[in-house]
């Protein structure tokens, strides 16, 4: 029993690290520009597919694909912002949700038309090696993904705290900063929005690669991940890096507990139930500013 508990906690911790990287972009778009990106899961899906195909066709090491996936992610972020978000920003309050929802449906359709409903696992040696730490077994793919996620997240944190660009992005958010003051200081809000979405896209590029090493890809993979992302971002609270990280771990552990209690396919039942509970009890999340 204790062994199972340790396994769940360790696995939850590892997943939590990966989740925080996968969904920091979702939280940024929401917190900085009030854009709830319904296509975030499909952004992840795109780079998961690119990882799968590059590994299968060219026998590459998955981690070598990261730079390319960063570029792919940034381009998707750019197109999403220019074509789907900026033009409808002045419309009805929820139009960006609908617009990105359209993109999500489009990408799911493309994936289904091209590669059918198949579940594809990216072949790699890291998933086959498992490491035993004090009775807890984890695959090398999971451990590498967690370590790289933490490293990238530290980089992202430093970017926002230390660089002028990072500070400018946060300043335009009305959760963390003050958009009016920011515009008085000469910050170009449209440029900041574009930068934010490209950064969010680039980060999903890294996350998508890492996730593909241990999780299968299929057309609806983004739907599960997107919902998971909303749960984590809401639970963590907008505008808090630490909140995101803690929420990621909580959800990771919940998933583990859920699989033990209900079976793997139904572990999300517990996650969604907790999500509804959080909305009821504390909608601003664990560490949200408002």
């Amino acid at each position, binding site marked *: 029993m204790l062994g199972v508990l340790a396994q769940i906690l360790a696995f939850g911790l590892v997943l939590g690290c990966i989740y925080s990287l996968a969904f920091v972009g979702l939280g940024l778009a929401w917190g900085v520009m009030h854009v*709830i990106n319904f296509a975030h899961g499909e952004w992840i899906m795109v780079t998961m597919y690119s990882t799968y195909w590059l590994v299968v066709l060219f026998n590459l090491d998955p981690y070598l694909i990261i730079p390319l996936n960063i570029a792919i992610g940034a381009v998707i972020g750019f197109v999403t912002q220019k074509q*789907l978000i900026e*033009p*409808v920003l002045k*419309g*009805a*309050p*929820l*139009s960006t*949700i*609908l*617009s990105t*929802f*359209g*993109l*999500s*449906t*489009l*990408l*799911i*359709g*493309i*994936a*289904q*038309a*091209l590669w*059918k*409903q198949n579940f594809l696992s990216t072949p790699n040696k890291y998933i086959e090696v498992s490491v035993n730490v004090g009775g807890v077994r984890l695959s090398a793919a999971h451990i590498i993904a967690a370590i790289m996620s933490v490293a990238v997240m530290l980089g992202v944190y430093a970017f926002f705290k230390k660089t002028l660009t990072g500070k400018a992005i946060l300043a335009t958010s009305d959760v963390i900063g003050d958009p009016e003051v920011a515009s008085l200081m000469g910050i170009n809000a449209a440029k900041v929005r574009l930068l934010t979405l490209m950064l969010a896209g680039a980060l999903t590029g890294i996350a998508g690669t890492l996730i593909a090493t241990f999780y299968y890809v299929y*057309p*609806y993979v983004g*739907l599960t991940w997107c*919902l998971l992302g*909303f*749960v984590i971002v*809401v639970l963590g609270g907008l505008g808090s890096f630490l909140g995101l990280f803690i929420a990621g771990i909580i959800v990771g552990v919940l998933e583990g507990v859920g699989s033990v209690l*209900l*079976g793997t*396919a*139904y572990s*999300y*039942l517990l996650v*969604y*139930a907790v*999500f*509804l*509970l959080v*909305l*009821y009890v504390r*909608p601003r999340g664990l560490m949200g500013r408002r």
Partner: protein
Amino acid sequence: MRIEIPREIAAIFAALLLVSALFRALRLHYIVYTLTLILLWAYLGQCWNILYGYAGQLSFGHAAFFGLGAYASSLLFTNYGVTPWAGMLAGGALAALLALIMGYPTLKLRGAYFALATIAVAEMVRLLTLKLDFITNGPLGIILPITRSAAYMQFDDSFYWFLLAYVMLFLLSMVSYRIEKSKLGAAFKMISEDEDASASVGIDVFKYKMVALLLSAFFSGIGGTFFAQLTGYIRPDIVLTPERSDEILIVAIVGGVGTFIGPIVGSMILILLRQTIFAMLGGGYAGVHLIVYGLLIIMVVRFMPEGIYPYLRRAIGRYLAA
């Protein structure tokens, strides 16, 4: 009490009946069936429109209400021999109960939170239906007994299916029209435009949003029963999939929200596109209809944010004036 039938409703429904009677006379049963699907999806779009178009609450999870209605009547029918005419009301009531449970914690929140909660709830309903297989028969679903009896809502002639969908859409159009013209509709509209201002003039925002959700869920559940009877076979991945929720939303958004006619226009577009794609490509290219749906939403949200119906109406108005 005298109930007036407004001119628009009379015109639309007279035209629909004429067209379908013509196709029936020509024995084009497939077209009558397609028309029935158009009416059903128009009906579901109107259900969704009550919640978003009138009261401003976005739902990505209407499949939950629809599916619950389908499952409730089908289980009552197969296990206890209850006629779906009664099962329909049970389905609607069960969907409304789900709405009450999910609305209580979520409708107090603003905008996007409710939308996110609807997806979570719909996924929970889908997963629970799969998991509780001793009640629902899990992923295999339910095959309805064949009675060929109108007493059990089964018809041999496609035209009777059409007529039933027709009556349902007519009644819901009347309800929608009454809401549009009533104080209830005015309160909904105000809430959808500005919740703070509505609260400050004494509108009980939470209560009105709940009323919209309950109405929407109840009618969606009834629609679910109709679908189960029409197809005779339901499964979680048919009636509870996110794709059903998405179609219901697309019908309303593409046609135009805020009026009962918008979803009718949207349904014609969506169902005709969908049936054409399925007929032309068969099952081989599974995702093509989703590509079309996605492009449709993106285009409409960007270029015709009010939907196609208001745009069409203005275009026709200009043409007639010129």
